[in-house]
């Protein structure tokens, strides 16, 4: 990271006024810091996806199959028939520009091809050329195609697709503002699906996908290691609370199967959120005899298959229902994650349902029927916890979070692909006294992406991530300066993995925290000892001195 751009240098580069002239005149320059490494052959092979080989985006030769244009042409044609979204979005954009300055990548880089409309035009120009009558007629008049914005699919065009479809986090912010709901995320999803027909994935997606397929989770944690990690948290929690919260694994006949992104199990600060889950489940077990099991087979809530192709998404997602069926649970509870929830909420039942072997989810403790999940039978943990709190089923000590000043980042996917807005806010307000919203145009359905979603949270594209995260960080900085916000709260494993870096870059004083970490801190376990530290082993408010004494002993 030594040659990384300084924040000031990055800011100096931002210019939101594009140069004059036609965007087709500038050909793509694949620049280090802005792109992710190519998928490794072995990862592509695991899933039997096409054209597994070693290749390097910086080299001229991308080692494409001989008939790559034909493959793409047929792929496009097939997808125009399979996805009405795609076909309509190709046809009806009026280039009004309403979406232009809505994309965090455009705002952070100033690169005009990061305007959602242009990102889509990269593909649309080829569509117009090859698939519309007008395009075909214009091809015969020299020079006419270009003026009409049409172009043939050349290697340069393909490279441009690759570069810019991996500079879109599929966040859908553009779609909120488009008068026709044109969703550039959908175009990127299909664009990437096309690229995958030629084996043009990035490794940060392909390898987690391959791990998830084989081992059950993105990080490739094997079953015993997965258990070890949770055992390790159990020990920490016992040290803090005096209570043994030992979880259950792969237990047949449990009430509920719990699935969360593996990031929560392996990467700080997600691990503290994971500890929050463990504390919550122990509490519910002791107080209400609720039987929750984890699974090592379905040990991944996230789904990087979604960033590869619809088919790959389905292949990875299938494990959730399969495991729920095998274990014979009543319904599934899902942890904090963004794209995981987009997949569960908008795709899972359609792809892998019907889940007729599960029961319509009812919270056995409050009797609440989760009507909104009665077909998919999977409930978001924020819906679940909010319901428990509302019914007074959790004994909470807010003061344990009183040294925290919170603001909240709505994940793109849960905000714009689901609408989970108030549940997390309700929980936060019940476990912490100091909550401040970021400015209105940067939250809820207008939330800004972390800049690293959709599989772009690699290390090598750090400049892209810091630039793309700028609008989000900028709003955090605003509430930090205005209200003294100390913590950025989120309900997404990718957020928790990438925000620490983003904050360190733009707003170093702000820490990152998950909602169930706050819950874990506040929840009073039956029979617990007097807690002196929070889950991070930092002294609780008012306990600083006791902690010092402890250490002295």
């Amino acid at each position, binding site marked *: 990271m030594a040659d990384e751009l300084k924040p000031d240098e990055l*800011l100096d580069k931002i210019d939101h006024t594009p140069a004059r002239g036609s965007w087709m005149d500038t050909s793509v320059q694949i620049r280090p810091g802005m792109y992710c490494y190519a998928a490794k052959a072995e990862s592509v092979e695991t899933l039997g996806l096409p054209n597994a080989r070693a290749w390097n985006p910086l080299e001229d030769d991308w080692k494409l199959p001989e008939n790559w244009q034909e493959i793409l042409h047929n792929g496009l044609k097939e997808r125009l028939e399979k996805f009405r979204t795609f076909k309509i979005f190709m046809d009806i954009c009026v280039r009004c520009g309403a979406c232009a300055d809505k994309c965090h990548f455009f705002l952070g880089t100033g690169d005009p091809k990061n305007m959602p409309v242009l990102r889509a035009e990269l593909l649309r120009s080829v569509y117009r050329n090859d698939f519309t009558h007008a395009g075909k007629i214009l091809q015969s008049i020299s020079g006419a195609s270009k003026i009409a914005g049409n172009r043939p699919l050349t290697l340069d065009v393909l490279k441009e697709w690759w570069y810019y479809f991996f500079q879109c986090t599929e966040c859908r912010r553009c779609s909120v503002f488009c008068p*026709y709901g044109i969703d550039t995320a959908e175009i990127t999803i299909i664009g990437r699906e096309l690229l995958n027909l030629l084996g043009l994935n990035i490794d940060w997606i392909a390898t987690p996908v391959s791990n998830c397929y084989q081992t059950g989770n993105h990080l490739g944690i094997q*079953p015993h290691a997965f258990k070890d990690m949770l055992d390790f948290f159990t020990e920490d929690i016992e040290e803090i609370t005096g209570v043994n919260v030992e979880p259950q694994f792969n237990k047949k006949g449990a009430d509920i199967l719990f699935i969360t992104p593996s990031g929560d199990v392996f990467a700080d600060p997600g691990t503290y959120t994971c500890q929050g889950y463990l504390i919550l489940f122990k509490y519910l077990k002791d107080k209400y005899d609720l039987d929750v099991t984890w699974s090592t087979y379905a040990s991944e809530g996230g789904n990087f298959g979604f960033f590869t192709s619809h088919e790959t998404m389905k292949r990875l997602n299938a494990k959730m229902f399969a495991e729920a069926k095998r274990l014979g649970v009543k319904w599934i509870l899902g942890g904090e994650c963004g794209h995981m929830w987009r997949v569960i909420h908008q795709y899972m039942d359609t792809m892998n349902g019907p889940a007729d072997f599960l029961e319509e989810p009812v919270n056995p403790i409050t009797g609440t029927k989760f009507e909104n*999940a009665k077909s998919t039978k999977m409930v978001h943990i924020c819906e679940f916890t909010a319901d428990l709190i509302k019914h007074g089923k959790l004994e909470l000590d807010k003061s344990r979070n009183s040294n925290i000043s919170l603001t909240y980042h709505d994940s793109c996917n849960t905000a714009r692909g689901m609408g989970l*807005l108030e549940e997390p806010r309700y929980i936060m307000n019940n476990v912490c006294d100091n909550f401040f919203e970021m400015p209105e145009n940067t939250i809820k359905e207008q939330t800004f992406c972390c800049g690293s979603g959709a599989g772009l949270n690699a290390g090598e594209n750090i400049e892209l991530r810091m630039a793309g995260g700028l609008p989000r960080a900028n709003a955090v900085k605003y509430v930090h300066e205005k209200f003294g916000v100390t913590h950025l709260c989120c309900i997404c494993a990718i957020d928790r993995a990438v925000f620490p870096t983003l904050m360190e870059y733009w707003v170093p004083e702000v820490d990152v925290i998950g909602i169930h970490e706050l819950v874990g801190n506040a929840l009073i376990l039956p029979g617990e000892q007097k807690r002196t530290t929070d889950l991070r082993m930092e002294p609780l408010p008012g306990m600083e001195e006791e902690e010092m004494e402890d250490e002295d002993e």
Partner: protein
Amino acid sequence: MNQKYMLPLIGVFLLFLLAYAGVEGANMQWAFGIIFPYLAVILFIGGFIYRVYGWASSAVPFRIPTTCGQQKSLPWIKQNCIDNPDTASGVFVRMVLEIFLFRSLFRNTKAGFARDETNRLSFSWEIFLWVGALAFHYSFLVVLLRHLRFFLTPVPACVRFLEYLDGIIQIGLPGIFLSGIVLIAAVLFLLARRIFDGKVSYISLASDYFPLFLIIGIAATGISMRYFTKVDIVSVKEFIMSLVTFHPSIPEGVGGLFYAHLFMVSVLFAYLPISKLMHIGGIFLSPTRNMANNTRAKRHINPWNYNVKTHTYEEYENHFRDKMIEAGLPVDKKE
């Protein structure tokens, strides 16, 4: 000079000249008055149906509305029934607001970046595009509806009433129609935006300028006929009625300007189905807006859903059985 707008401008001018000269110089009234209008109507109707049919025959595999408000979840959490509808009636309201009030465009913001000690990105409400778009579409609609007076005998009361409202500000004779003025002003605004706003100009294509110039041409010829050259309304009406009743006959004493106007209208109609102007139809079908966000409550069926190869639990356990047993994890088969 910028080809992207010079070419369409010249193109529209040529279209005008073609009709004007064709009629004034070569007496081709029958072509510009009869053949092209009929042809345009056929292309318009046929093309429109073809395009909508094309979209409708593409599958909708997933229910993926863009949600712009609180979902329906727990009973005590207030749902945003319009921006995140879970019922058909909610979707209906959402669509009505989109189609008639351009609700999404209403949200438009403008990003600003201050490269100073604050380095603040700011987002301010930007209403002009919405105002311009709304003014344009509604004035166009009023103009179109007003023209019904040429197509219907007797002229329906509602058309006459509309005309009365449109002409309520009485200046000079014949009275000024507001719609015409608003239309021209709105089109000029949209055009100026395309030319002078750096971002919009960068994304604009010739096919974005062409309809704007064409509409300007149509409005300009229409306005000149009404206020300046004072076309013979009675003959025009007779002529249009002859077209409508499929007994076309060329009127006496109607000049080239009228035919130029009619020809440009014909071009607009014929062009519509092969262009982005099809957003008129597309907006109804856009799956991110016209679907209810109830995918977890009600299963959506993908017509082309197919089975895929997955990594089953059995394969997984076979792979890891020893390690699982050693770690004390339950297994289905002991060996």
